[in-house]
């Protein structure tokens, strides 16, 4: 006990007091760590909020359902409900249908209407109304009265609805008057869609949507017993087209996707923290170096090497701890921004989530605390170990700085080169689906490898440039070169921070640009068309509502003006596990106006087969997720029949909900008979002389108001807008990492100045002017920054390959055409150098913080 007490007293005397007297430096480091920790924490919390919202939603929607009965690409006949309920393997069965609907005459977002049987659903899902006095009446009203619903609290609040009031809802453009008979209280189903949900009786739902005779799915609780056997037995008794799946399947795939995204962002945000820890390293290293004398005294007075090690290690840890505390208010500022950005991205990329707010997760807080403190502590290990080696006899010796021996640099360089060499093989290791773990490990290895070779690069640079520099820029530049050559690992640390930040910057600039260019190409070719039409809310409702015959006839009436490419979409699971969209499209007109962006397969040779429905093209994502390749056979049960066609090619596609498979509309027709469209795209004929907007207006005038219509130009713009929004969060993280790196350079340079005050003052004493000294510092900064920037560029290009061809593939299943945005990079180089040099300003100011005369007084 007393031992520990003594340790902390010593820590206070020896570490905290000097820290307090160097407030500016300590605060800078703390700010850097705090920024890193805040980014890490708030990103984690923001994704956690989305994940939690998703879970709440899924828990509410899935309830206690164990298995789900559905028909891929179709609906389940309602007669199966009674059949299932009479089955001895079934304990409970509840039919569910859902659709997104809109409030008539209102701009509010669509909300989920869930049609169910309140009686049959009782064992599965929990919910209650706020009206506690007659708790039974609300759900009974649902059954008793047509056109009644119970609203989620948020939905009722947003629309200002009161129990008993009526409102008109629109489904696929068709209105129906509803009466609200209650508002859900908290818990259970009320959490679905963050409260933007309404419940109605299945009868009302069918009368509203017109989907009579069938339901979306039937959720089951099985009788006690072995699940697999029960499912087998049930399958035998059900029609062929009906499938049974674990109810948690949707939850699992959604969860996996958000988790992957969380990991991706975590690692990106960890980069900020990582860069921040360079600061901890520099500060602890400086303190250890500048307190060498004190350390020697401590040792001579009987402190053990372990105690010295512990003192400096605890200093690093304390910096982490204080940085983390400081991160709390910073996170408070960042979080609202990230919360919105992240939930939008998750909704755009993966699954619809509605995040009402965030809740503090003890686990996330603990994680961020542990990671920050541990990483800061780890950063202090090496300087602490150095300090531990200070021999007690040094208390009697003259202080002399030692350069880093060549041998050590060589070993470092060798290790660094080996690491860089290991990057590509590591990146190519197989990892878990959706988690780019090998990719991220490779990235880490790349950063560390580059940081390790930076002393050698500096040495080489210093050696080769100092002589020319003397000729070109005089003695200060020469001295700077000589210093950089021998500055060893200490400079390498800040160079490492800079390399990391620059590499992140460069690689993300390249990746985002490549991504955007590829998406643009895809949008222009594959999302071609002048006008897109679909039934109302078709997109959010997974294109399950075919267009009406009237709507189709209306489109045909304009066929003189525009060529119509009909399409039918199905949201399916391939092999019961890979979610994707199967899209049948009139291939001939489509390929005349647009094209796929082919990756593999012979586009020209495959065309006839594609047009005639003798094959499919599959997206890269779908190919990666399923392992299907050109020449393999694609098989999908569909409404009682099956699509079995060879894969003709792999194409690029960047729609967000997984993969996509295209085949000819005629093939679908041959398979299913009369097929209704879920949407169509229209290409204006050259002869028409109309604009797309005129075409839309013509449709509107003729009663096309019941369809969703969007101009191709607008749709393509919207896709790119969403794309840009998605990367807004990434860009912010990027700039924060750069800012932290700039802080790192500021600290390192200041430290380099402070710890050389004796040398600088000697230079002054032997005739150096303060201008010469500052010039020298500037040259040092310039050299260090140049090395950082140059190595960062190289590292960044390597990293961009990993990002595009490894991490994106591992995380999302897609890659892009490699495109470098040279102009943005060219602009960024001077920008980064300017930022880094600005970071040298505090160092200039520090040059004469110790008066030259002090040198003579120090004995």
């Amino acid at each position, binding site marked *: 006990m007393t031992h520990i007490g003594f340790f902390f007293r010593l820590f206070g005397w020896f570490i905290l007091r000097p820290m307090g007297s160097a407030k500016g430096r300590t605060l800078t480091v703390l700010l850097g760590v705090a920024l890193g920790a805040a980014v890490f924490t708030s990103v984690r919390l923001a994704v956690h909020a989305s994940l939690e919202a998703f879970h709440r939603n899924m828990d509410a929607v899935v309830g206690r359902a164990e298995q789900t009965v559905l028909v891929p690409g179709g609906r389940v006949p309602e007669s199966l409900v009674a059949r299932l*309920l009479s089955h001895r393997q079934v304990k409970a069965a509840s039919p569910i249908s859902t659709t997104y609907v809109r409030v008539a005459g209102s701009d509010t977002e669509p909300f989920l209407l869930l049609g169910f049987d309140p009686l049959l659903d009782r064992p599965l899902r929990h919910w209650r109304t706020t009206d506690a006095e*007659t708790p039974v009446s609300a759900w009974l009203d649902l059954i008793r*009265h047509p056109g009644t619903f119970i609203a989620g609290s948020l939905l009722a609040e947003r629309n200002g609805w009161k129990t008993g009031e009526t409102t008109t809802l629109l489904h696929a453009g068709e209105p129906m008057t509803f009466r609200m008979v209650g508002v859900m209280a908290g818990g259970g189903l009320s959490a679905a869609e963050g409260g933007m949900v309404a419940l109605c009786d299945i*009868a009302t739902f069918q009368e509203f949507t017109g989907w009579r005779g069938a339901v979306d799915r039937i959720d089951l609780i099985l009788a006690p017993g072995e699940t697999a056997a029960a499912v087998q037995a049930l399958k035998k008794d059900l029609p062929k087209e009906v499938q049974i799946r674990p109810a948690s399947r949707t939850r699992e795939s959604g969860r996996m996707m958000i988790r992957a995204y969380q990991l991706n962002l975590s690692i990106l945000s960890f980069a900020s923290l990582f860069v921040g820890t360079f600061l901890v390293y520099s500060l602890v290293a400086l303190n250890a170096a500048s307190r060498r004398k004190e350390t020697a005294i401590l040792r001579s007075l009987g402190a053990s090497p372990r105690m010295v090690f512990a003192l400096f290690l605890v200093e690093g840890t304390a910096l982490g701890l204080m940085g983390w505390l400081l991160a709390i208010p910073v996170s408070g500022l960042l979080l609202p921004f990230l919360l919105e950005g992240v939930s939008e991205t998750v909704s755009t990329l993966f699954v619809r989530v509605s995040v009402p707010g965030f809740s503090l997760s003890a686990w996330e807080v603990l994680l961020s605390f542990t990671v920050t403190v541990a990483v800061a502590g780890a950063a202090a290990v090496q300087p602490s170990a150095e300090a531990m080696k200070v021999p007690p006899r040094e208390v009697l010796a003259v202080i002399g700085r030692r350069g880093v021996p060549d041998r050590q640099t060589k070993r470092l360089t060798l290790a660094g080169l080996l690491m860089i060499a290991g990057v590509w093989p590591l990146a190519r290791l197989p990892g878990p689906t959706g988690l780019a773990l090998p990719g991220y490990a490779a990235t880490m290895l790349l950063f560390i490898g580059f940081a390790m070779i930076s002393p050698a690069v500096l040495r080489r640079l210093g050696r080769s440039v100092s002589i020319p520099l003397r000729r070109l820029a005089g003695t200060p530049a020469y001295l700077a070169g000589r210093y950089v050559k021998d500055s060893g690992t200490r400079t390498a640390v800040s160079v490492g921070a800079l390399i990391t930040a620059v590499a992140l910057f460069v690689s993300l600039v390249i990746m985002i640009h490549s991504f955007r260019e590829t998406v643009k190409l895809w949008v222009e070719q594959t999302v071609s068309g002048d006008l897109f039409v679909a039934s109302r809310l078709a997109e959010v409702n997974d294109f399950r509502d075919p267009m009406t015959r009237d709507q189709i006839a209306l489109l045909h009436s304009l066929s003189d003006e525009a060529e119509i490419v009909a399409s039918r979409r199905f949201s399916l699971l391939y092999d019961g596990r890979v979610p994707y969209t199967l899209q049948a499209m009139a291939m001939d007109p489509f390929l005349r106006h647009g094209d796929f962006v082919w990756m593999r397969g012979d586009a020209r040779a495959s065309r006839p087969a594609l047009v005639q429905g003798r094959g499919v093209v599959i997206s890269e994502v779908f190919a990666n997720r399923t392992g299907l390749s050109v020449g393999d056979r694609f098989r999908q049960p569909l409404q009682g029949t099956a699509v079995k066609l060879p894969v003709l090619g792999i194409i690029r596609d960047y729609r967000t909900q997984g993969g996509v498979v295209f085949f000819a509309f005629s093939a679908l027709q041959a398979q299913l008979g009369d097929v209704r469209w879920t949407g169509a795209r229209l290409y204006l004929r050259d002869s028409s002389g109309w604009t797309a907007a005129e075409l839309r207006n013509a449709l509107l005038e003729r009663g096309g108001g019941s369809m969703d219509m969007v101009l191709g130009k607008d749709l393509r713009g919207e896709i790119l807008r969403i794309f840009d929004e998605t990367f807004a969060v990434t860009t912010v993280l990027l700039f924060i990492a750069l800012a932290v790196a700039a802080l790192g350079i500021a600290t390192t340079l200041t430290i380099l100045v402070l710890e050389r005050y004796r040398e600088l003052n000697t230079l002054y004493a032997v005739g150096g002017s303060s201008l010469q000294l500052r010039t020298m510092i500037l040259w040092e900064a310039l050299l260090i920054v140049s090395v950082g920037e140059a190595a960062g560029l190289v590292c960044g290009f390597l990293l961009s390959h990993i990002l595009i061809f490894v991490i994106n593939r591992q995380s999302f299943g897609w890659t892009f055409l490699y495109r470098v945005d040279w102009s943005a990079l060219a602009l960024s180089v001077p920008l980064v150098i300017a930022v880094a040099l600005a970071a040298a300003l505090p160092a200039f100011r520090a040059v004469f913080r110790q008066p030259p005369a002090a040198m003579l007084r120090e004995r």
Partner: protein
Amino acid sequence: MSLCRALGIAWMGAALFAFISPAFGSGGYATVDGPCHFSFPRDHGAHFGHRTEWWYYTGNVRTEQGRRYGFQLTFFRTRILAPGAEDPPPEPSAWRTSQIYLAHAAVSDLEEERHLQAERIARGAVGLAGVQTDDGRVRVMLNDWSARIEGDTHRLKASDAAFSLDLVLTAQKPVVAHGDQGYSVKGAGPGRASCYYSVTRLAAAGRIGTSGALVPVNGTAWMDHEYSTSPLEPGLTGWDWFSIQLSDGSDLMLYRLRDAQNGTHSASSGTWVGPQGTARHLGSEDFRITETDSWTSPASGAAYPAGWNIQIPSLEMSLTVSPAMADQEMKTPETTNVVYWEGSVVVEGSRGDVRIRGVGYTELTGYAAPFDAPM
């Protein structure tokens, strides 16, 4: 018991459908205000215009080895909207209906003292539940549970994870209409009545399973069928209902309506059915029921009477009624959420100088909570 049953439904209605229209009044439903003029097989079927209706079977059976079981299977029908008050859209969904069905089933394994129970609920649509009358055959069903009546034969089927029963019941006596040709008055005021008949003695044969395997059983059963529109009279908290088949060939139905002070309401009554099927009405003044024991449910905490002395001076009858096993408490969280005791009983006593024995079923309601408690 049909009365009890009737009341049972009424209180279940009270619980499940407390919302139902004004507290009193038929509001468009078919009412019961005179003799019911039963005609069979028609009246075995449903009376959809009335608010509530139930088909109720109980029985005591044993295997060849003498292993004894009690069983009950009850189907309830309730109408949630009065005829004429409905406002269906032009093209109603197949799910659109005003009829809701509930069913409770239980098997009392008297040897091992296990009480197995299950419940079902569904609307009367899309093949989930309903009552069909077809060429003289009546089928009451809810999922895979059913009661089929054809002539004197009643075929019962019900099963759950823990038990199943499959029995053929054959009437040993003709149908007995309670009250005035089935017009069974339930309280003061017009329309506070039900149409109520029973088959008090049926021979039961079939199979019962309590642990997987079905075993053949034989014994006696009881059937009630009752329909009504009016709710229970205010102030009543529950009832004790008895159906007893005696060794002298006679059967007895008695119910005691209780108020909050455990007093007996004057509408309490009963019916004695002689060996040849002749019925004699018993008014509340004709019998006296004394509780001799009690049992507290560990599950619900409710304290039930668990032994009775029944005196019927006009029949010179003195009976001691004891539960065949203590715990036959029904818990129905998924349907009515009402807790009651419904169980097999054994009877000993005398008629005049002759010692008689018997078996029966007793229903005790309102002990766990007043029966108008919301579900």
